[in-house]
């Protein structure tokens, strides 16, 4: 199993890497990853092919994802146990950040802040 330090050195993940890893809990090929990232992020995150190729290369080299099949020239990847550990750690970090943030946001709103989203 991967040690704690081993996992922590990959954090924080970039936004693109994070969303790509989220889609790879099941085997997917590159184009499907691009589409799914767009879908789950509600078009907030788009991954270009150059960026995706770079992320795939790095994640594979670091042993966070692995090639599972190849159809025509499309290769499918999925998370390795180490990749899952890294992703889980990242999610926990984000939860902590979001949990702390939510409390502050509540106070800000009580002080009259209306939020930029609704403006």
């Amino acid at each position: 199993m991967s040690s704690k330090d081993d996992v922590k050195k990959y954090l924080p993940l970039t936004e693109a890497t994070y969303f790509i890893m989220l889609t790879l809990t099941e085997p997917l090929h590159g184009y499907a990853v691009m589409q799914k990232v767009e879908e789950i992020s509600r078009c907030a995150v788009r991954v270009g092919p150059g960026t995706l190729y770079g992320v795939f290369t790095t994640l594979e080299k670091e042993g966070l994802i692995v090639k599972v099949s190849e159809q025509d020239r499309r290769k499918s990847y999925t998370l390795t146990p180490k990749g899952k550990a890294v992703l889980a750690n990242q999610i926990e970090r984000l939860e902590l950040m979001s949990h702390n943030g939510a409390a502050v946001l509540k106070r800000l709103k009580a002080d009259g802040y209306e939020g930029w989203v609704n403006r």
Partner: protein
Amino acid sequence: MTEEKKTVKKFRWFWAWQDEAEEAWLGEMSRKGYHLVAAGIPCIYEFKAGEPKDYVYRLDFQSFRKKEREEYLQLFQDAGWEYLGQMSSWQYFRKEAKPGETNEIFTDNESKTGKYKRVLYFLGFFYIILIAVFWGRIWGESPYPWWDGIKIFIAVVLLIMTYAIIRLVMRIRKLQRR
């Protein structure tokens, strides 16, 4: 009506730090109705005359083996990019500009930085080799009269490479600061 498929050849020098200018120039040519046929021989561009089109051209810098290349090109093709070939290690792509779609092959600063780092390592490799081989010979006595000419040539090449490396490092720094 004269509907001949005219091709136009252009000669253009392209420095390593001018990739964005290169992309813009190719897009400009397409808007005038001249579309790049293929990238291949350095500095020589062949355009086919046709209807003006709003094409986006993008360059990547990659040198890899055949197997990796297939996977790479498949990704770009699936994402709607047409591959035009490579000029040294610059990979040329284009796509019709459409609203609501990404017209970028690199969608974050990390991957943009990665591209310039690859150019930098490539240049740096040859830079070190050139220096290792020629440094002593530049400053030493000329064994033949024509050696002076070669010395000047190599000195100029090294100067330009130094400039290119500085420009690339500056570009990377700027991207990392964002």
